[in-house]
């Protein structure tokens, strides 16, 4: 574990050096990324400018949902998102994946955390500021238990997204070009920006049980606010566990299928 953390630290340092080589572009990217986060808040502000409630959520609760979403997004975008959906297919296409396999590291770990995005890491500071804003302006009283539950569910959401992306990335071993799937994944994650309560009927069932987008932001936020059903949480835990096992099998199967290219 310590070895892997140290390697992640080295990856982020190297990448910061790489990206600082194009300084104007780096700062513009950080401005762009922080603006994008603020736009999500703006979207909610405009919605609440026209309505007092959205699917039963008040503005202060939606603010929590939005920063929960931004926290998850910042974490995955800094670490494994682009590694798995864009850089891994590229490695496979060019036959460079051989070098990953020959390294004394778990290939999945190496492919997922090879490039730690320092632009996204820098923009993540805004999320911390937004959390500060939430606690000073909107947060009511909450118990330690709900905070712990919130963090656990955040972790569960990350595991779900990681497993999903591993399955998507594994397809690159067959299709070679999987960047379209990467974009598709981004949009799927983005549906988590809104409370899943806005969906009705079949869609509600789909996003709660079959493909639990709710896990990205809605469920942790509700747990924090203390309005969550325990049975549903148990379901999500079991679901994520099975889903992770499946993704691991898919990845191993994909590795066996790999037969180098060009080199």
């Amino acid at each position, binding site marked *: 574990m310590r070895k892997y953390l140290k390697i992640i630290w080295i990856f982020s340092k190297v990448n910061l050096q790489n990206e600082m080589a*194009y300084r104007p*572009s780096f700062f513009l990217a950080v401005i*762009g990324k922080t603006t994008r986060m603020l736009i999500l808040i703006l979207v909610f502000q*405009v*919605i609440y400018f*026209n309505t007092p409630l959205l699917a039963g959520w008040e503005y202060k609760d939606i603010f929590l949902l939005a920063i929960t979403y931004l926290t998850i997004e910042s974490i995955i975008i800094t670490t494994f998102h682009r590694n798995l959906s864009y850089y891994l297919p590229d490695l496979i296409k060019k036959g460079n994946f051989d070098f990953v396999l020959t390294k004394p590291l778990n290939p999945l770990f190496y492919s997922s955390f090879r490039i730690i995005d320092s632009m996204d890491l820098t923009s993540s500071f805004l999320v911390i500021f937004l959390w500060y804003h939430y606690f000073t302006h909107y947060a009511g009283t909450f118990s330690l238990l709900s905070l712990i539950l919130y963090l656990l569910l955040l972790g569960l959401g990350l595991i779900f997204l990681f497993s999903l992306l591993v399955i998507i990335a594994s397809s690159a071993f067959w299709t070679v070009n999987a960047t*379209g799937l990467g*974009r598709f994944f*981004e949009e799927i994650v983005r549906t988590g920006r809104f409370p899943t309560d*806005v969906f009705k009927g079949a869609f509600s069932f789909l996003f709660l049980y079959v493909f639990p987008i709710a896990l990205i932001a809605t469920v942790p936020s509700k747990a924090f606010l203390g309005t969550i059903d325990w049975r549903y949480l148990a379901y999500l835990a079991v679901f994520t566990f099975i889903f992770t096992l499946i993704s691991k099998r898919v990845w191993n199967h994909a590795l066996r299928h790999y037969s180098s290219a060009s080199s």
Partner: protein
Amino acid sequence: MDFNFKLGIFHSALDRYYYFSAFVFKYLYELFRNLMKKYLAVAKATWQEYLAYRTNLFLEVIGGFIAQLVIIAVWFSIFKDLKTEVVGGYSLPEMITYLLGAGIINSFILIASQGDEINDDINQGSLSGFLVKPFSVPLYWLSRDFCRRALTFILGIGEYLVIILILSNYFVFPFSLTNFLVFCLAVFLGGILHFFLFYIFSIIAFWMDQTWGPRFVIRVIMSIATGSLIPLSLFPDTWQLVFNLLPFKFMAYFPLQIYLGKASLTEIILGFSTVLVWISALIGISIWLWGRGLKKYSAYGN
């Protein structure tokens, strides 16, 4: 007799006029065809190239489509909670139609091109290969860009048609046929405006190593300022003032106002004049930058 004679003269004059216009038209057509031949060939080749990536493009399109469906669900929920007929001047069907239209415009016509190719061509030196060929490189890029737009449009329109059928109770047809045609023209001009905006921020690659940063900032601002998530009229006044000063509203908000018949004749005329001024200004800037950039271009990498 006299009358018929006069009519005869009139007819022959009319005939001559017809012949003359047919001649002029044919001449212009040939001229246009000869001019365009090269770019049509480029478009054809590009079409083949992009078809190879159709699965990827299709997945991209589907992704945007899902995102727009979520927004539609959000608005359904708002109308249901508020129990009112109209929010911010929009009835529910108008809002749904607005968002569907914005989705079609956004995913297929606007998001399609982001200038990556132009940036790479300049920075990796493949521009040298184009410069020696007998065509205008900016027009070459433009034809490739519109080709991609056309392809993603075809890939995506199917899904939207299915959703329009499902939500047919909430779908509003264009205000009138004229409105629809003017809408199409506005979308087309929006596409041109979009191309030149990104084109300018791509050819600054002559001076910068990476132009991804500025283009990303524009894309982010565009995501809200085109009005494709929320109609701009629903924003607080200060924001509306800002959006009115930017060119982005002509890419989605303005055309959709025409479609829904929410824009008056004066607004339409004013809007078209403004968009033409924007396009001319951007073309002017791009020509100036291109000239200066070529002088600076040193074709490294090749």
